[in-house]
C-alpha cells in the first residue's frame, strides 16, 4: 500500500476532539486514578483515605493473592500453547479442505468462529450444564459410556482449573485458527510443489516451509492471545465464579472480589495496576514487533 504524501487538510483538532474527550474521560483519567488509588487504603465504604504502600505490601504478602497469581500463569500459559497448536491444526485442516474444494469445510470454520464470538457468559453457562454431575451433564454420561467413572469436573479444585482451561481453549482457539489460516494462505504454493519434487513428506513440508515462513504471524498471534487470556473474566465468572475455593480464580477475578466483596479499593487497584503492567508490557512487545518504527502509516 502506498504512503500518502500530500498534506490535504490542516487543523485536525476538531475531528479528533470527540475521541479525545471520550478516551480522556473514560480511559486516561480512570487509568491515572487507578494508579493513584493503588497507593491508598481507599474503601468503597468510607469516603476518606490516606496514602500508603499498604495495598502493595498486602498484595505481595497475601498468600491467597499470590496463589491466584500462580493460577493465572498456569491458566494463561496452558491456554496460549494449546490454542496455537489446536488453532494451527484446524487451520491446516481447513486449508486442505479449501484447496481440494471439499464440502463442509467452510461450515467448519464458521462453527469454530461461533465459539469465539458468542458472549463469554453464555460459554460459561453452556459448559456448566455439560460438565455438571447431574443427569443432564452429558460429559459424565459419555465417560460412563466408555467405561470410565464420573468426574467432578467443576467441583474438585484441580479438575475445575483444568476444566476452565479447556473451556477457554474451546472458546479462544478460533482466533488463532483465523490468524494462522490467513498466514497459511500467504505461503506461495510453488514452494510446496518444489518440496514435493524433492521428495519431502508432509511433516518435512510443515517444519521446513510452513513454520519458518509463519514465524512472524505466530508471534503476533501469541502476543494477542496472551493479552486476551490474561483479561478473561466473564466466562470464568459464569462457569465457576473462581471456585471451588479459589482454585479457578485469576487476577481479574481477584481484583473484582477485592473491590466488590471486601470493598478494598486500594488492594483492588494495586492488583489492577499489576494487570495493567502485564497488559502494557505485552502490548509494547506487540507494537515493536508488528508496527516497527515506520510502519504505522502503512497499516
Amino acid at each position, binding site marked *: 500500500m502506498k504512503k500518502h504524501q500530500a498534506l490535504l487538510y490542516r487543523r485536525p483538532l476538531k475531528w479528533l476532539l470527540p475521541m479525545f474527550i471520550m478516551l480522556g474521560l473514560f480511559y486516561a483519567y480512570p*487509568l491515572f486514578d487507578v494508579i493513584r488509588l493503588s497507593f491508598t487504603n481507599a474503601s468503597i465504604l468510607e469516603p476518606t483515605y490516606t496514602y500508603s504502600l499498604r495495598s502493595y505490601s498486602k498484595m505481595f504478602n497475601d498468600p491467597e493473592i499470590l496463589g491466584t497469581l500462580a493460577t493465572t500463569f498456569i491458566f494463561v500459559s496452558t491456554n496460549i500453547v494449546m490454542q496455537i497448536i489446536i488453532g494451527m491444526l484446524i487451520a491446516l485442516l481447513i486449508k486442505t479442505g479449501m484447496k481440494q474444494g471439499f464440502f463442509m469445510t467452510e461450515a467448519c470454520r464458521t462453527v469454530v468462529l461461533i465459539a469465539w464470538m*458468542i458472549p463469554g457468559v453464555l460459554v460459561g453457562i453452556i459448559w456448566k450444564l455439560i460438565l455438571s454431575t447431574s443427569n443432564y451433564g452429558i460429559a459424565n454420561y459419555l465417560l460412563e459410556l466408555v467405561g470410565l467413572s464420573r468426574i467432578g469436573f467443576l467441583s474438585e479444585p484441580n479438575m475445575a482449573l483444568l476444566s476452565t482451561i479447556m473451556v477457554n481453549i474451546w472458546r479462544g482457539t478460533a482466533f488463532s485458527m483465523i490468524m494462522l489460516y490467513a498466514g497459511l494462505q*500467504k505461503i506461495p504454493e510453488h514452494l510446496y510443489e518444489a518440496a514435493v519434487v524433492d521428495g519431502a513428506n508432509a511433516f518435512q513440508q510443515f517444519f521446513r516451509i510452513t513454520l519458518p515462513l509463519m514465524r512472524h504471524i505466530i508471534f503476533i498471534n501469541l502476543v494477542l492471545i496472551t493479552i486476551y487470556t490474561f483479561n478473561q473474566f466473564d466466562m470464568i465468572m459464569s462457569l465457576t465464579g473462581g471456585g471451588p475455593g479459589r482454585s479457578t480464580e485469576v487476577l481479574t477475578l481477584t481484583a473484582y472480589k477485592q473491590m466488590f466483596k471486601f470493598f478494598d479499593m486500594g488492594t483492588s487497584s494495586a492488583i489492577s495496576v499489576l494487570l495493567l503492567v502485564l*497488559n502494557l508490557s505485552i*502490548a509494547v512487545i506487540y507494537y515493536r514487533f508488528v508496527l516497527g518504527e515506520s510502519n504505522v502509516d502503512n497499516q
Partner: protein
Amino acid sequence: MKKKASKRFILFFYILLAVVILLFIGPIIWMVMLSLKTKTEIFSYPPKLFPEVWSAQNYLHIIRNSRIPTYLFNSFKITLFATLGNLLVTIPAAFAFSRFRFAFQKQLLFVILMFQMISQLIIAIPLYRYFIQLGMLNSHFGLILVYITVQVPFTTWVLKGFFDSIPIQLDEAAIIDGFNEYQTLFYILLPLAMPGIATALVFNTINAWGNFIIPFIFINDSRLFPISVGILNFADTQTEGEVTIHLMATASVLGLVPALVIIVGLQRLIVGALTAGAVKE
C-alpha cells in the same frame, strides 16, 4: 495444479472435520436440546439427545414469566446507541488519522492501540467511584458512554485502515471541484468506506451485546440488566436446587440467537477484519 485426492485421504479428512465440527457445535446443540425438554426429561437417565415431544413450552414460559424479554430489550437498546454513538466518535478520528498530518500522530495511534489491550476491568474500578458520585450508577446512559469508549480504539484502527485504502487522488479531485473537507468525507470517503463501516458495526454490535464486565459493575437494578448480566443473574437465582435447568438453557438460547445470526450472516467481514492488521497485503 490440483492432484486428485485418494479415497483414504478423503475419509481421513472427513473424520477429522466431523470431530472438529462436533466439538465446537455439539455443546451449543446440547443446550438447544435441553431448552426443548421438560423438567422430568432433563433429569431422566440415561440422557437422550432429542426431546420426546418437541415443544416450545419453555420459551413461552420464559417470555411470559421472566425478565428475560426485558433484558433482551435493554441489550438491543444499549447496543444500538453504543454502536451508532461509537461511529460518531470514530469516523471523524479515523478521517483525521488518514487524511491529516500532524505532530505526534504516530505516538497517538500507538497510545490508542495500547488502550485496546487494557482490561476493561481496570478502568471499571475507578469509574465505579465517579459514577456513584455523579449518580450515574444504574443508568443506561452512563453505560452507553463507556461502551462507546471501549470500542473506540479498535474501530478507529479499522476505519483508518479502510480510509487509507481509498486513493488520495480522489480527495484531490474533490478539492479541485471545490469540495471542503466535510463534503469530501461525506460524499467521497464514506460511501467508499462502507465495507469498513459495516465491519465496525458488526464488531461493535457483537462486543456490545456480549459485554459483561461493564454492566456487571455499573448496574445493580435487575430491571436494567442487559442480557449478559441478566442471564447470569437468572442462572444464579435458578440453580438453587437445580430444578429449572430447562429454563436456564432456554434463556441462554434466547440470548445466543441474536449474536449467532450476526456471526453466521456476516462472518466474511469478521474474518477480514481480524486478519487485516496482522497479515500484510
